[in-house]
């Protein structure tokens, strides 16, 4: 009497643990790189670092050259029409890819979460759901924590709020960093507090933005680390800009740049 239902339960458990065919990465699957516009233009070394990590891991890459901006500045600024147009464009550019990886929690959240709030029935919502931030893709999808990197320096981590709260990628990033050879990882005090960047907020409310940035700088400096590392170059542009303006020797690096080091 017990055999039937119990067997069925075990089958179901196995099915859900293994995931369905579509959400497991198969060796040979191509990954499309989504390189945010400001990384393309201001921090191209971050994109190159991502390429070098994936090449080391033997992952097939493509970079759809038509990509521009995901539309987040328009979305956050309340400019829905422009945001919808850029979301639709993103969907057209990336629709043929099953896996899309972005070295940014913020642009990742825009595509993976906010496209759906703009219009849940849109192609952008469907395509956006296939976007993964770099850390989550490496750790949760590929199942890799040690990417074979070596970085003999002390680092602390600035955690982008969108990556942390919308995508939940904090633990993955921390695990990746801790697995890097010869690294001295130091946890940032008050890691959960926003650095104050906030896109346009950084200039429309600049006094508040830099007040929050000051607190982040102080916490980062208190760790005594050589490098402040983040999965988001946008937050680093703000906090790094403040550190540089103050003549601090604390350097900023994207997570991908640390993982690419050997």
């Amino acid at each position: 009497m017990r055999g039937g239902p119990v067997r069925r339960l075990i089958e179901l458990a196995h099915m859900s643990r293994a995931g369905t065919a579509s959400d497991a990465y198969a060796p040979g699957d191509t990954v499309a790189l989504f390189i945010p516009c400001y990384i393309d233009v201001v921090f191209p070394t971050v994109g190159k670092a991502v390429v070098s990590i994936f090449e080391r891991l033997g992952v097939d890459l493509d970079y759809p050259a038509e990509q521009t901006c995901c539309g987040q500045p328009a979305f956050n600024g309340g400019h829905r029409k422009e945001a919808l147009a850029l979301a639709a464009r993103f969907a057209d550019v990336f629709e043929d890819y099953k896996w899309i990886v972005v070295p940014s929690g913020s642009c990742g959240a825009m595509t993976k979460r906010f496209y759906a709030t703009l219009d849940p029935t849109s192609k952008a919502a469907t395509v956006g759901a296939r976007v993964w931030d770099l850390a989550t893709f490496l750790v949760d999808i590929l199942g890799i924590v040690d990417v074979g990197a070596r970085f003999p320096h002390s680092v602390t981590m600035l955690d982008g709020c969108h990556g942390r709260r919308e995508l939940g990628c904090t633990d993955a990033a921390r695990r990746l960093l801790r697995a890097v050879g010869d690294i001295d990882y130091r946890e940032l005090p008050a890691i959960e507090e926003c650095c104050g960047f906030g896109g346009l907020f950084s200039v429309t409310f600049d006094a508040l933005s830099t007040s929050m940035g000051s607190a982040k700088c102080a916490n980062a400096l208190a760790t005594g680390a050589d490098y402040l590392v983040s999965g988001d170059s946008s937050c680093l542009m703000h906090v790094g800009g403040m550190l540089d303006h103050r003549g601090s020797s604390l350097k900023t690096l994207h997570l991908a740049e640390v993982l690419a080091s050997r």
Partner: protein
Amino acid sequence: MTIHFDRKQVHDDLHKPNAPAVLDASMRRAVEHKHAAQAAIAWDALRERAHEIKAYSIEHLDELLVRFEREFIARGGRVLWAQTADEAASRFLEICRKHGATSVVKGKSMLSEELELNARLTAAGVEPVETDLGEYIVQLAGERPSHIIAPAIHMSRQDVGSLFERKLKIDYTDDPEALSEIARLRLRSRYLEAGVGMTGANFGVAESGTVVVVENEGNGGLSSQAPPVQIVVIGIEKVIPTLDDLVVFLQLLARSGTGQKMTTYVHHFLGPVDGRAMYCIFVDAGRTELLADPIARESLYCIRCGACLNVCPIYRRVGGGAYGWVYPGPIGSVITPSMIGMEDAGELPFASTLCGACAQECPVKIDLPHLLVHQRARSVDEGAASSTMENSAVSSWARAMSSSRGYAYAVAAARIAGVFSPVLPWISSAVRAWSKQRSMPKVAAMTFKDWWSER
């Protein structure tokens, strides 16, 4: 009355010795206490349940409010309805006149702030007396509460000491216990003289017609029970279906607000006793504007615990005053534009980095960042906040981002004119704001796109 988020306040406060540090420290303590209090119970499950109950309640306000009215009247209470703040204040005054009240003792109520009840009562010759210690302090100071559950959080005990010295003509002390005792002694007789006692309401339970008020100082109990007439002012969104539902919220509210497991007092008012009179004034005052908006509606789930203020990095730096109206912090920036009009408060939703700390703390799981973005979009659609210059900058930029050629053009322009360029006047003011305390990012010699195409 057009509200501008007070940037000057930001500036002044940041430079005033201690002010932001004191507020920041209090807020941090509040969040620590909350986390400690929520650790011992099934917090996430409770939040989920609370969200569901509120979602149901807000979708069924028509039935629940009528049910509450029926039950409350059956026990001898009276129910009045007010569409606007003016109407609510008028109803309140009519009751005072009918019962010949010349003074009103008041428990803490944010709705009363919305109605500007103190000013309206005073103008009509009825003296309002705030009995919550924080409210008593801000009333003496002639200010507005700067936090929804800690009205005088922006003042130090030294500030309060000087205020009491000046206004009450007594010797200076900044000993908190002594200050509390001074207020207590002065208030004691006022309860007995007052013709009307007023409280707000934390919940109205529809199945039993119960008004539930939580408090810690005992002043709510005295205000409601000492005078012969009790008036409850209550927002229409405060009604929940059952007493079982109430149990869910009582576990969440005190933990979120003060880090207590339970408030010192939980009053269940079931109607008038012994020939006394009890009134409930249900107030809309802009709530149906929120209800009519399928997305902003979620903000009506709010139980006014203050957790989103406590954790907000913006609120911690500027305090309640900068937000310009009754409700500060993330929840205030969402509801104020709908309640008093987007044209007057369209800037508030922009005063946020959208970091999401508020949503993480909210005991009823209101998606505050999503609602802030929604209100921003309404603000832009209605031309309430963004300048023409910004609008045209955004649309030129979006046009540039809509084609590979436009993108390449924008990159080339950025090389010449600094980052992210197409429309210059707006960009140059942004560059100025950025550069005050930050080095400018530089456009790389070769973009990733070019590097990829050449490899």
